[in-house]
């Protein structure tokens, strides 16, 4: 009977862990709705009311924000999707040389922090300090800057450039999985390659494209980095930055009730968007084959256009990654922002690095970041393992619901989870003084990335044959031990992949950190953010460069590992 008890306990522990995570997710979302029905500051007595919603609906500012957000999203999609489509097509369907290199150039860009790239674009295209603008003005004798990044189109452009690799990953997954027979049936009957592309492939890829567009749209709705770095200082507010502003107003009290109403609407919108998203995804899966063999459709020969293909990919990498990085580096070397010139070059030095890097606040932020990078992925991996086991392996009732709940943080903007946990921590701050501590960040990061962890581990666990587990079950090996000694070793690549990815994400995360960081719980990204908005552009640039440098070996390790495990296509 002892063994039977162990059997039972193991499942109970797993169910407990998974249940706690599900409760946390639902609890945090519920808190947003609850907030929206109350007024005043957290903890203050308040009746339940719809006032906040009425205020929101009656506020013309909100409609301006909505319009800005829609335009921002449209530009983002307009940049990211065509680029992603062309990249996917070049890499999956043509004889472009050095594809591995091309994939690396596209993939590595995703991993570096978006807000740093946004900073680079300010240095390049700001009407006053943008290097490119100044060059144009001097060369053409203009009196006003020809280009302005601090516009809706500008931030959409930067966001679109950063999202293009993700669009590429999503579209190329669809292209790769598409049943080649569908395409070849056309070629065999003498239909030309280009005509097949237009008449057969494009219609077949359409659902996948649509699902990618919807996904990009939800990301644009939630995007904080680019609108926060470029837009906010220039009075351009999208949904996410407007929400930030409600909680961190220049004057007056944080308006939690209003932000709750606002957040509740965002939750509804992002969940509603999942309906067409999954519908499109299901449609595109119908055109796919599941086959173990890598059976490939024949490729289109680019001929003279090969060079053009590489110009496009190389050009993208240069513009989206190298150029902003160079701009940041340049600014970090100078005492104040100025044009590249012989005089400026003479003034350039690494002095700033020495001065800023040993700032005790920065060291503290570095330590906190390290803590997040170790603890968050560990929690995510452990909790996701429990959830994925229950979802894919057990027959517990409610496992489908559990899977759906674990998915929720994926479409719902993360900043809402941050807002919610901030409110919750304030509520209980008299009892448990968590507000403003690093633990709040750890908790909310973990909750949000469980959706990523469970996606990766679900697919890893499905691949482990059920009989491998049953063979141990028949011998009476307790559940937890089966999990640890049979399943975990077999899904190790997935676990490592999820761990490193989450760790990198913890390093680059700005959105949630900005909502929650207090002087006690600064992290590197919020430190840069603080410098940036405090006017210390040069210092921010120097720390940014150091952040990138520190991150590079981690990114390289991750990339090599992910490629070896063929898990490049991350469902970010």
């Amino acid at each position, binding site marked *: 009977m002892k063994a039977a008890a162990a059997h039972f306990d193991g499942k109970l522990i797993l169910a407990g862990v998974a249940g706690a995570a599900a409760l946390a997710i639902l609890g945090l979302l519920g808190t947003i709705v609850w907030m929206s029905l109350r007024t005043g500051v957290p903890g203050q007595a308040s009746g339940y009311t719809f006032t906040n919603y009425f205020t929101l609906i009656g506020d013309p500012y909100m409609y301006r924000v909505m319009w800005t957000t829609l335009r921002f999203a449209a530009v983002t999609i307009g940049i990211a999707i065509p680029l992603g489509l062309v990249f996917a097509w070049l890499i999956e369907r043509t004889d472009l040389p050095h594809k591995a290199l091309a994939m690396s150039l596209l993939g590595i860009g995703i991993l570096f922090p978006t807000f740093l790239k946004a900073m680079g674009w300010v240095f390049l295209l700001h009407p006053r300090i943008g290097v490119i603008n100044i060059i144009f003005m001097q060369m053409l004798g203009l009196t006003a800057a020809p280009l302005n990044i601090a516009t809706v189109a500008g931030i959409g452009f930067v966001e679109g450039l950063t999202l293009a690799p993700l669009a590429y990953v999503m579209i190329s997954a669809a292209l790769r999985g598409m049943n080649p027979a569908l395409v070849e049936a056309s070629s065999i009957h003498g239909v030309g390659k280009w005509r097949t592309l237009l008449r057969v492939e494009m219609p077949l890829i359409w659902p996948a494209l649509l699902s990618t567009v919807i996904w990009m749209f939800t990301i644009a709705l939630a995007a904080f980095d680019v609108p926060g770095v470029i837009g906010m200082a220039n009075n351009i507010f999208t949904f996410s930055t407007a929400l930030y502003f409600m909680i961190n107003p220049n004057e007056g009290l944080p308006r939690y009730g209003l932000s709750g109403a606002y957040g509740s609407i965002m939750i509804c919108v992002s969940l509603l968007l999942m309906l067409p998203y999954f519908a499109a995804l299901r449609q595109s899966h119908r055109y796919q084959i599941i086959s173990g063999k890598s059976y490939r459709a024949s490729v289109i020969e680019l001929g003279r256009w090969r060079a053009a293909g590489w110009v496009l990919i190389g050009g993208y990498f240069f513009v989206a990654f190298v150029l902003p990085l160079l701009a940041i580096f340049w600014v970090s070397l100078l005492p104040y922002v100025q044009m590249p010139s012989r005089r400026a070059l003479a003034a350039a030095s690494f002095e700033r690095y020495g001065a800023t890097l040993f700032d005790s606040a920065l060291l503290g932020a570095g330590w906190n970041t390290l803590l997040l990078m170790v603890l968050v992925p560990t929690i995510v991996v452990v909790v996701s393992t429990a959830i994925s086991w229950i979802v894919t392996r057990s027959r517990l009732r409610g496992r489908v619901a559990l899977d759906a709940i674990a998915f929720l943080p994926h479409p719902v903007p993360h900043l809402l989870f941050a807002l919610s946990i901030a409110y919750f921590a304030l509520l209980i701050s008299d009892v448990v003084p968590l507000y403003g501590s690093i633990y709040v960040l750890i908790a909310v990061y973990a909750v949000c990335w469980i959706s990523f962890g469970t996606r990766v581990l679900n697919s890893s666990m499905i691949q482990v044959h059920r009989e491998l587990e*049953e063979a141990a079950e028949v011998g009476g090996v307790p559940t937890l031990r089966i999990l640890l000694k049979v399943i975990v070793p077999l899904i190790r690549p997935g676990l490592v992949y999820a761990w490193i990815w989450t760790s990198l994400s913890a390093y680059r995360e700005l959105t949630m950190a900005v909502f929650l960081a207090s002087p006690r719980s600064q992290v590197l990204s919020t430190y840069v953010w603080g410098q940036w908005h405090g006017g210390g552009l040069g210092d921010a640039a120097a720390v940014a460069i150091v952040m990138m440098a520190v991150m590079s070996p981690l990114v390289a390790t991750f990339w090599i590992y992910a490629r070896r495990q063929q898990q490049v296509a991350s469902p970010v």
Partner: protein
Amino acid sequence: MIEIRALSKRFTTSDGAVRALDGVDLAIADKEFFVLLGLSGSGKTTLLRCAAGLEKPDAGEILFNGRTMSSAAAGVFVPPERRAIGMVFQSYAVWPHMTVFDNVAFPLENGVQRMPRARLRERVMSALALVQLADHAERPVPFLSGGQQQRVALARAIAVEPEVLLMDEPLSNLDARLREEVRDEIRGLSKKLGITVLYVTHDQVEAMALADRMAVMSGGKVLETGAPEKLYHFSQSRPVAEFLGAMNVFHGAVENGGVKTAVGLLSCALPEGMRNEVTVAIRPEEILVSNSASGGANEFPAALESRLFLGDVTVYHLTAGGAKITYKTAADPGFEPGGRVYVSLPAGKLKVFAR
């Protein structure tokens, strides 16, 4: 030893409920090698998994040695590890991250039967010796051939010294030649160890080669149970007889103690209660064919349509009175297609089924 009574199991899938088992009754004797045979989807695996305790039946009972293992009515369900079973899976299910030794040792180290190190080693090695893998104990399993991996799975199942060994198509992933070899080893081993075996397959040759007795399943029901010879020659139902081997069938009507068919009037022993429409069947190798008429009963002239040489046997296709007849023989008489011959259908071999 194993008693299964009125066992039912249904699965609910996205497109409705499937009756995987629909009132199965079986009694398997002690030390018997019992085979479940049936087409894909007939419920064999489900039955085996119910016996293992990996699946919980909706209705009915399973008893091992008189002990109730599962009874839906009484609410009894003994978990797999307390049923004293060993199980060999279709996919082998050997753990790829362990060595041969560890694969066999793992359930003994971590399961219900924990034992001291020395005894464990002895147990594992003797199980490996039984399947001739003692020399490979320290090899990681991915370096073994398919047949060897299958034997690891077998060693792991018998190392726990089970009273019942359950096997689900253990040979289906092996190639034909190896399959026969391992098949004979499995039977030899089970007899040597003297354990009760419940074995699932969809291959009738494999089933007949292994079974002391077998059950033919279809649509979640057991159609017929019996020794292979009995089922092959004297099956009560046409689906069972046809599943076990090819048949020539003639539809006809009962008429003066015989059956009137397309080939002619067949005289045969009519089972009790057969009236009107019946089907008469005979296996291709039970037919007699010769160049000249012998004047015996059930003899008809036939035309030789074609000849198929298969090595150990030769198959002829004939027509008699518009009916097609297949004749199979090991001693090739060397008839030429196009010729005329005489077919006789021995009355003792004719099987009559109601229609």
